[in-house]
């Protein structure tokens, strides 16, 4: 087995052995869908245009989990590994830094996608959620969003100095962005000015992309959110590549 494959195996095992990681990376999305479904059910209601709660909101749960992962979990984890000297230990070997990062990204991506896929299965099978558009398109957008927020996580890890700061900054960012995204609270209930300002948030754009595709819109109708997400990937990757430190 090559070192990249070994890294993938070991990182996967490590993550699965860590209860907090299993919860936030894999279990959170399906549990969130389950909880919302049990509380609100999926009967058609007028505030969601005569659709059920799960029907209207399932796709946007993806945005909540990728935001928590990319803004809090990933940077805190990477900064902790830097602080404890775990990254330094790898740096003293001939291992190429990009190999390490690629393996890390592959594992985080795969486990996040697993959680998101199970979430859709729960929504569809347990509550009868129905995608009016292509489920493949929704999962593709989910994959794009996981990558976007992984890049953001790496960028934050590169610029934030310590585990405590990473946790603090992550929490300060994540709650307002989720509230402004329309994934947790319908944007319609927010004041007009706030609603317009919210459009500047990439997370709001992501929710609109996911809900649009779920409701049957085409990709070309959503070119703005896609461009925003690609822009964030580019910017975050540049920041991470410039400032990433191994110790």
């Amino acid at each position, binding site marked *: 087995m090559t070192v990249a494959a070994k890294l993938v195996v070991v990182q996967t095992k490590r993550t699965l052995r860590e209860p907090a990681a299993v919860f936030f990376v894999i279990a959170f999305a399906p549990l969130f869908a389950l909880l919302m479904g049990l509380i609100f059910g999926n009967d058609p209601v007028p505030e969601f245009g005569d659709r059920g709660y799960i029907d209207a909101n399932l796709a946007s749960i993806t945005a909540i989990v990728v935001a928590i992962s990319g803004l809090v979990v990933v940077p805190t984890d990477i900064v902790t590994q830097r602080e404890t000297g775990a990254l330094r230990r790898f740096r003293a070997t*001939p291992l190429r830094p990009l190999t390490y990062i690629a393996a890390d990204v592959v594992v985080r991506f795969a486990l996040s996608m697993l959680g998101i896929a199970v979430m859709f299965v729960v929504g569809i099978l347990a509550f009868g959620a129905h995608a009016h558009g292509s489920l493949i398109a929704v999962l593709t957008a989910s994959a794009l969003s996981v990558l976007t927020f992984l890049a953001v996580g790496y960028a934050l890890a590169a610029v934030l100095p310590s585990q405590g700061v990473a946790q603090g900054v992550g929490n300060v960012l994540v709650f307002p962005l989720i509230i402004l995204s329309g994934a947790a609270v319908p944007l319609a209930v927010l004041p007009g000015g706030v609603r317009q300002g919210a459009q500047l948030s990439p997370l709001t754009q992501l929710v609109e992309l996911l809900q649009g595709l779920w409701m049957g819109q085409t990709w070309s109708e959503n070119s703005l959110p896609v461009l925003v997400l690609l822009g964030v990937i580019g910017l975050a990757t540049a920041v991470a590549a410039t400032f990433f430190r191994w110790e």
Partner: protein
Amino acid sequence: MRSGEGTAFCAPGDEGCSGSVAFGCENVVKHYGEVRAVDGVSFEAHRGEIFGIIGPNGAGKTTLVECIEGLRTHDSGSIGVLGLDPQRQTRLVRERTGVQFQTSALPQRMKVGEALDLFAACYEQPADWRDLLARLGLENKTGSYVETLSGGQRQRVFIALALVNDPDLVFLDELTTGLDPQARLAIWDVIRDIRDGGTTVVLTTHLMEEAERLCDRVAIVDHGRIVALGTVPELIAAAEVEGNMSFAVDGSPPLDRLRALPGVSYVEHLEGRVVVHGNSARFAQEVMGVLAAVDERVHDLRSEQPSLEDVFLELTGRQMREGAPA
């Protein structure tokens, strides 16, 4: 022996280096802003020796070693490691060297066997890591999580990681700090075995006893310079530090005759006990000659030789140093 004296430099690609020299530094300088952390260091380590680097906190030891390891870039001067340039041939140097950091960890929830297997895969020609764990007495810990091991066991895991590529040169930083005496002695045996297997060992340490017992040669670093280099007996002989002989005596001791001996610097007389301080080749014999000739009963004769610690304090001073980066 002072730094810069008779050091044949081991340049990258220099044929002579593949012979007896593990690495060489010539006039290496490293600044952090205005501070010269490494201030013109020249020395070399021989193949198959345990080379100790000691110095006060902030003396520049770690920076110097990190420049040699290729983990940090130096500003000027040159460094050759196993005939390679650690700044330009970094991966080749890493293939053939091992590093154990003072502050290092493995990612959480990793088993000992997984860690060794993973790090072995980072190298082109890894050692048999199961064999290595057995040599370090860790063969039963393959399935244990690293964080559940005792301090001594964990330290041996990090030594195993530093040796997993069967390196020609291994750097060990503060190897036994914080370990109990049994674990320390066991690890010293391991290091001697490594040396006897042909690997050059560079040991950075705060513990004078460790340097004294383990190192074939020692460099004392202070203010970014090497202030002394040699075997421990050489360092003690070269430094102007004194030993002492002390004894108890019934009646009045021959203080004047002791003070008159060549090599005696001063004599203390406290509560029936006499301490004679001095430093000369025949110091002990001279003192005993005087004692043999006196009528009073002399008992409880003790001799204290100067130690590496005395040399270290003599060369680096006794004032406390804090806050400087190690």
